[in-house]
């Protein structure tokens, strides 16, 4: 029964009851939070995109269209479940599950309040990076099991893209970890007297772009590019399995927003309002930025996406890590504002330098 020796370290001292009560309460909180926020995100995105495009979003299902996600869920549940005849059935069936579960597991380490997480792991952010890599396997299984050339192209692109962007993602987090001094998410939030977005502007931008690429949002949504390969890896899915992929996309967006809020924007910290409200405001703010980008700019091509990851984001992330390391060791903590301006200056110089000398992708291939 050695497992019962490990749990006391994850339990904050002021929590009543045993470990299993804490676990039960937080599982319920996380599931309710994720489901409610996904519905809220779907509504917010559709209304927001509508307002960006000089039109109203959905407004017929319930007041202000608030029941639209519910209507979508009911519609999707009543659809026929079509399975391709020659596809690999086990792989096809398991793919949504393998894609969804890691996205949900990320929420175990997101702090909603001081000490209020499911498990305050001391490797917090590393756990997040590790778990989110498993989602790639789910997408590849979906593409393979569908027995469809379009799905296969989508799946190949997915693997290439998501694996490449893991590296800048992990490296940009290291800057934050160096300043906070710990990998645990709770300690990172507690160390943010000044939000880290000011101290690490380059890190924020790299993390934001790499995270958008991980979750396949525009401008990197070429896996489900409607106008090219018509929905990519989930072409052949219908009914509840398609709903699972749809949920995966929004769950991952929610996870990324929550992680960015925790790492860069100060989590639940804020002056007047209760901490949970601040957390929600910041999460919605990050999501607003994500779909604002989606509504404006076109998407990139796969070789441009790969070039961007390997030739642009990776060197910048390495340089950011080196510079942050030097700053943490050399500069005393009283000079915080100098550090902010220094970092902004370095970011501007690096962005200009890379823009001048960096080629975005190959051209025509001689056939």
């Amino acid at each position, binding site marked *: 029964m050695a497992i019962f020796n490990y749990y006391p370290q994850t339990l904050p001292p002021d929590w009543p009851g045993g470990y299993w009560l804490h676990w039960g309460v937080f599982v319920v909180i996380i599931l309710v939070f994720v489901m409610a926020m996904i519905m809220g995100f779907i509504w917010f995105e559709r209304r927001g*995109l509508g307002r*960006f*495009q*000089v*039109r109203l979003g959905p407004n017929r299902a319930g007041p202000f269209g608030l029941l639209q996600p519910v209507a979508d869920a009911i519609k999707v549940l009543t659809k026929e479940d079509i399975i391709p005849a020659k596809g690999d059935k086990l792989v096809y069936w398991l793919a949504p599950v393998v894609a969804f579960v890691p996205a949900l597991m990320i929420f175990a380490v997101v702090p909603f309040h001081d000490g209020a997480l499911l498990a305050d792991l001391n490797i917090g952010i590393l756990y997040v990076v590790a778990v989110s890599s498993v989602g790639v396997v789910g997408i590849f299984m979906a593409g393979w099991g569908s027995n469809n*050339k*379009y799905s296969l*192209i989508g799946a190949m692109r997915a693997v290439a893209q998501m694996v490449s962007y893991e590296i800048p993602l992990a490296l940009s987090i290291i800057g934050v970890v160096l300043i906070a001094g710990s990998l645990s998410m709770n300690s990172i939030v507690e160390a943010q007297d000044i939000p880290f977005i000011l101290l690490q502007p380059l890190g924020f931008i790299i993390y934001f772009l790499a995270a958008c690429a991980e979750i396949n949002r*525009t*401008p990197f*949504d*070429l896996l489900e*590019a*409607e*106008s*090219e*390969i*018509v929905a990519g890896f989930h072409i052949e899915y219908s009914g509840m399995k398609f709903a699972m992929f749809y949920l995966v996309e929004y769950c991952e967006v929610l996870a990324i927003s929550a992680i960015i809020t925790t790492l860069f924007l100060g989590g639940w910290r804020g002056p007047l309002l209760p901490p949970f409200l601040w957390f929600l405001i910041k999460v919605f703010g990050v999501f607003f930025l994500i779909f604002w980008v*989606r*509504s*404006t*700019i*076109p*998407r*990139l*091509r*796969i*070789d*441009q996406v790969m070039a961007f990851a390997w030739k642009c984001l990776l060197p910048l992330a390495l340089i950011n890590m080196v510079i942050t390391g030097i700053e943490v060791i050399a500069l005393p903590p009283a000079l915080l504002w100098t550090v902010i301006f220094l970092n902004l200056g370095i970011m501007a110089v690096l962005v200009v330098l890379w823009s001048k000398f960096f080629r*975005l*992708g190959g*051209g*025509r*291939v*001689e*056939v």
Partner: protein
Amino acid sequence: MALKTEPFVINVGPQHPSTHGVFRMRLTLDGEVIVDMEPVLGYLHRGIEKLAEGRTYTQNIPFTDRLDYLASMSNNLAYVLAVEKLAGIPVPERAEYLRVIMAELQRIASHLVGVGAFLNDCGAFMTPLLYMFREREKILDLFEMVCGQRLTYNYMRIGGVSHDIPAEFLPALDRFVTTMPGFIDEYDQLLAENEILLARAKGVGILPEELAINISASGPVLRGSGVRWDIRKADPYSVYDRLEFDIPTGSVGDCYDRYWVRIQEMRQSVRIIRQAVEQLPPGEVRTEVPHLLHPPEGEAYGHIEAPKGELGFYLVSDNSIAPYRFHVRAPTLINLTALRDMMIGWKVADAVIIFGSIDICLAEVDR
């Protein structure tokens, strides 16, 4: 040990969100690179040329509406010019100016759809498309005020136009012409310097000047490749020789040049409309033509600069009430001849962009 690969054939089928109509392409791919392309046409063939041999000259005008349904006024104009050349019928001056105003408004409307659809294919999630459709809606309201319909106008008649403009047309047109350049500037701000659009469209799908001339391309496809050829200047019809305008010409012949040529043509059309409204003389709008027209025996070819290229009608008459032969020189069918050479060596994602930049309308290709 070298990796054994083999090319595989993918079918960008008749039903696809990005083939503008029912167009089928069979792409042979080596990884993501296109090595061969075979277009398959004919899914929208309705036999207009044969049907027109059984109807009188006036009854054929609604049929020409349905050729390039996004630019019906231009189709009507080309056909009516051909018949007037065949039968030697004069047109009053007010009618000529009204025809020019309608044709240029139609050019703006057609380019709005063309550019909007191109940007939608690039991946910009319908935002530029909806902005352009807002302006197109204003033009369609003006057309509805004049002739009663919004898509298939049936406005031009042999010997003039069918009705005079109502009293509120000119003030509304004036308001439109004053606000339109502002909106074109907005489109430029949205996308002309967008790095991602530049990365996707600059240098992609180059049509060399020699090839463009050899395949008799016309319209923005030809002008994007650097050839200054516009029928309104080279063989002026109607009153274009009294109006002042420039011909925008690209330099390289890539997708970005064709997109740029279309945006500049919209500005020039606004300029032409302003001059035509100033020079509009009073008078009647239609010469008396017998109800059943018997043109003398012979043949005539009437061509105009339609938004998509050189649209021509070749009519042969044998002194009866119906044409003996009615042939449409569809600009987009001839422009499509170069599609294979433009596409080889690029990637799957570029196939859709190159195809969208030619701006086809399947109804014209298949007639």
